[in-house]
């Protein structure tokens, strides 16, 4: 990871359609900001994937491709961290119900790896229930080695 002392803080917030095109757009936007913040190629790949998985969860599982529901997507960078938030307007789910994809009985499942990959690729990951019933996730990547 390269420390980019000249990096100018950035912040973007968007309300995106519940489509796969929004997933691509969000990933591209965030990776661009992460690149300007000084993350190397390996870290950019990880950040991109984590954001993609978060957006897919919001679009597919949260909003269920509902054209009347939006995904709130925000990215901010300062000298120390890149912070991404993804919020949907779905019905929410039990955070304790997420199966462990590494458990032997789950290893050959065809889905269920998204949140695991997000946790693997980011330095911090939090989920919370929104007042409207939806889910918001916060992903953090440190820009300076700690």
């Amino acid at each position, binding site marked *: 990871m390269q420390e980019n002392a000249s990096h100018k803080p950035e912040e973007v917030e968007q309300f995106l359609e519940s489509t*796969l095109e929004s*997933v691509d757009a969000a990933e591209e936007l965030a990776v661009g900001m992460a690149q300007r913040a000084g993350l190397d190629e390996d870290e950019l*790949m990880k950040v991109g*994937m984590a954001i*993609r*998985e978060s957006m*897919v969860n919001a679009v*597919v599982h949260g909003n269920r491709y509902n054209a009347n529901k939006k995904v709130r997507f925000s990215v901010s960078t300062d000298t120390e961290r890149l912070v991404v938030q993804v919020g949907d307007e779905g019905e929410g789910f039990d955070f304790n119900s997420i199966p462990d*994809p*590494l458990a032997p009985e789950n*290893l*050959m*499942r*065809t*889905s269920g*790896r*998204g949140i*695991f*990959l997000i946790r*693997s690729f980011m330095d911090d990951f939090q989920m919370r229930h929104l007042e409207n019933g939806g889910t918001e996730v916060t992903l953090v990547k440190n820009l300076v080695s700690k």
Partner: protein
Amino acid sequence: MSVKLTTRQVGDVTVVDVAGRITLGEGSATVRDAMRDMVSKSQKKILLNLGEVSYIDSSGIGELVSGFTTVTNSGGALKLLNLNKRVKDLLQITKLYTVFDVHDDEASAIRSFN
């Protein structure tokens, strides 16, 4: 471009050269359809050459797992060839690297089916 599949026969092994992005949507669906087509044609020996895969997400991983299970359950074998760092890292993180038979050389991969 999403994903492009090119199929060729090397003896009784079906080699599928995969190029592009295996992500949720068109990419993963194309891979899924190709797998089902090969199984329906009773192709038992399938080698997926992933050397030109630029991106794969968890849905793409899911399609590889689904294909592996389907081919195996039909009495066949599905193997992987030319994993780049991204795909290899993902399979290792998800503990799937040891599930698949992974090769770096096509000739040896073909021989391994026998």
